[in-house]
């Protein structure tokens, strides 16, 4: 008669840590980007269709809500990319030490927020300059 398998503690048992939160955020940003590709496809399809179709996409992306969505998409894209690089480093067997993994998690977060703000600052300057 085999003994029942031991149950591992579930997510809510642990005190949340930064690396744990980052793991969940990596998955959530991945899911966001999954549906975010609809925006990319919509943009490409509109550009290939007609000036009118493109104008309606531009209208949405230029609105407050549209910009909010695009800002979120930009951050999710960069965060998931930096998080993915972190995973690729782990795949080589490096970066698992307590200090290294904390440092990598902080670098990913600071990098994604910093790069997103930088990209949008450049973007708003470009749009502001041409209109």
């Amino acid at each position, binding site marked *: 008669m*085999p003994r029942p398998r031991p149950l591992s503690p579930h997510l809510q048992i642990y005190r949340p840590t930064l690396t744990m939160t980052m793991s969940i955020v990596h*998955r959530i940003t*991945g*899911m966001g*980007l*999954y549906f975010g*590709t*609809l925006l*990319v*496809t919509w943009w*490409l*399809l509109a*550009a*290939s269709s007609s*000036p009118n179709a*493109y*104008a309606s996409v531009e209208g949405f992306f230029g609105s407050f809500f549209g910009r909010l969505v695009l800002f979120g998409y930009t951050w999710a*894209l960069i965060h998931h*990319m930096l998080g*993915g*690089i972190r*995973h*690729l480093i782990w*795949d080589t067997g490096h970066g698992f030490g307590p200090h290294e993994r904390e440092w990598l998690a902080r670098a990913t977060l600071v990098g994604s927020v910093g790069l997103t703000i930088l*990209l949008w600052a*450049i*973007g708003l300057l*470009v*749009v502001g*300059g*041409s*209109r």
Partner: protein
Amino acid sequence: MKPEGSSIRTPLARVRGLGAAHSGTGHFWRQRLTAVANVPLVIGFVVIVASLLGRNHAAVVQVLGSPFVAIVLLLFIISVTTHMRIGMQVIIEDYVHDDIPKLVCLLANTFFTVAVALTAIYAILKLSFGV
């Protein structure tokens, strides 16, 4: 799972070519392959979008249809949709345990990612060939 010792097959022989996805390590490898490809392709995509900010439809069509930009976009779409299909499959396999809902989710995942990929590819080719 059977307890150890009830079979003369080694653990490796039991999992080789099988595993939870019934297909070995193919997805694991392809997810890393597309992750590595996504890094330069996402940077390329961001640069392309940034260079088109504030441009009118005619200028956008001309840039998106130029060979280098179109090829980068095609590679971006193929790599990203492959990556996101596997990523979403992992999420479904983690959280959806009953057979029928899992099957429906996996089918929907494939339909969605293939539809997104083909729509975007169609738009890019249309922009390139100008039909």
